[in-house]
């Protein structure tokens, strides 16, 4: 592969390889996939692992998306502003929209983080409420994180186009801003669903 | 007079050009240009950096060459060596002032034409 940024390199190949390794080498070599063993594995996994992973994904993915969006917008904005400096202050809005996705991630991460309570496994087995909470926080974090990742990229790309078109024709700015607002709303959907999902969290089963 | 004409070689004589680059390029395109074995050319590209002395010497050289029948010289260039042109009064080579691309033809500047008009006007 000549290009390291090609999605084949950074996405499809690692995912496929991992899946193949997982399918082939995990568990009993007699079976292709040993479901009993898998069940045991998941059952004995700590729900704190899942909740921590959820929090990390929520903030990490959001910030990844925001950063990505900001550089897509930013590099175009900087280049276009050389010739037309007037666009800089207006187009900071695009950067702020990208930044907002990071903030969504941070907010959701904080909310998720506050939901974590202390419980102990009984006889090495986790309570099912604890398991539920762990998966809920994980799901909430993943939902929010990926939604914000994509939202950040979307806002970034639209913001980049916005900067370029504003430089050519300033009447286009408001119109593209509307597009951007709708793009930015995508992240909010993730946030909303994430928060609703995290509402299911009850570590001790007391509601 | 007859002697001068007898000197015309049977395979034809050349035209010489002294002018700016664009004017000369056109004539070269038409096939006027000639470079002989000794790399002597029958044209001189005159730009703002060409010294007047060089124009003069080329003009005199063209006048002295016996295979040149007509010397085309752009008015701009002619203006720089006006006195040399006025001294030249042989019929061959004929010195012809042509307009150059950058400045349109001004009949009042032409040595020959002023002479012609002088004669025509006063006779």
């Amino acid at each position, binding site marked *: 592969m000549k290009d390291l940024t090609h999605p084949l390199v950074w996405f499809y190949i690692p995912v496929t390889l991992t899946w193949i390794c997982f399918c082939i080498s995990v568990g009993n070599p007699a079976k292709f996939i040993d479901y009993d063993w898998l069940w045991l594995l998941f059952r004995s996994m700590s729900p704190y692992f899942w909740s921590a992973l959820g929090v990390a994904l929520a903030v990490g993915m959001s910030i990844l998306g925001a950063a990505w969006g900001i550089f897509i917008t930013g590099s175009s904005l900087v280049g276009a502003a050389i010739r037309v400096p007037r666009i800089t202050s207006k187009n900071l809005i695009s950067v702020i929209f990208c930044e907002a996705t990071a903030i969504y991630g941070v907010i959701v991460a904080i909310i998720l983080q506050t939901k974590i309570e202390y419980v102990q496994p009984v006889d090495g087995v986790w309570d099912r409420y604890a398991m539920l909470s762990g998966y809920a926080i994980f799901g909430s974090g993943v939902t929010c994180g990926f939604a914000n990742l994509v939202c950040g990229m979307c806002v970034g790309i639209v913001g980049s186009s916005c900067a370029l078109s504003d430089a050519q024709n300033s009447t286009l700015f408001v119109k593209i801003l509307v597009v951007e607002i709708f793009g930015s709303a995508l992240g909010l959907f993730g946030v909303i669903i994430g928060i609703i999902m995290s509402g299911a969290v009850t570590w001790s089963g007391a509601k | 007079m007859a002697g001068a004409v007898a000197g015309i070689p049977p395979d034809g004589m050349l035209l010489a050009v002294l002018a700016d680059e664009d004017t000369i390029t056109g004539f070269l*395109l*038409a096939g006027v240009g*000639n470079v002989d074995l000794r790399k002597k050319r029958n044209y001189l590209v005159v730009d703002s950096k060409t010294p007047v002395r060089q124009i003069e010497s080329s003009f005199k050289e063209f006048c002295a060459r016996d295979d040149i029948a007509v010397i085309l010289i752009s008015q701009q260039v002619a203006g720089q060596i006006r006195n040399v042109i006025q001294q030249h009064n042989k019929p061959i080579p004929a010195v012809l002032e*042509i307009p150059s691309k950058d400045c349109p033809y001004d009949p009042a500047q032409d040595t020959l034409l002023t002479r*012609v008009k002088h004669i025509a006007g006063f006779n």
Partner: protein
Amino acid sequence: MSTARYTVAPTVTMLTMMKARLVGATKGHALLKKKADALTMRFRQLLKEIIEAKENLGATMKGSFFAYTEAQYAAGEGIKHTIMDNVDTAVVKVRGALDNVAGVKIPRFSSFVIPGETKMDLTGLGRGGQQLQSCRKAYQSAVELLVQLANLQTAFLTLDEALKVTNRRVNALENVVKPKLENTISYIKAELDELEREEFFRLKKVQKNKQKNQAKAEAEFATAMAELQEATADTLDMPPFDPKMPGQNVQPPASSSLLNYKEDDMLF
């Protein structure tokens, strides 16, 4: 100087010679005048043509320059370097011939294109070739016109020179040679008349002197005779002296002697 004349001895032979020369000069003058007129006519025609052609030239060259601009537009700025480097041997040349106007030989050029493939044919193959070829044609026709103009110009210069020489000759004959000859002739004539008159006067004078001498001699003779008569008075019956007598006696021989008279210092 109308009073100038040739320094010749005023003789009859000279007079005939001068007269012959005058006739020659008049004839030559008439001929030269005719030639000068022919040349002037052609010259005038040339002047008109030159002015016309020169003014035409401006327009034609303008067309050619524009054709070049079109070529440059189509083929790009760099095309001129390509053209400059493609120069090899000239394909447009000038042929010379002689024209005769009233005895004046005028060189006459005509341009011709050496046929055959040239390097310029493929110039601008990638782009602009068509415009380059049309520009080339425009310039070739401009060259044709220029050569014609060069023709007119050489003819003008040659004719100008010839006309000057002829006019100088006509004027010389008219204003110098002919008056000089005429003056000489009239001088010789005057001189001859003068000589004749002088001779006549001289003869008269001689005759007068002769008569005076004769009268004197007769008077002396008369006195001598009177003395003699006195001396021999009455011896001789002589008539008295008549002063007119000797004149009447001498004149007829004197007038006849003028016609027959031969003297050494007379020329004729």
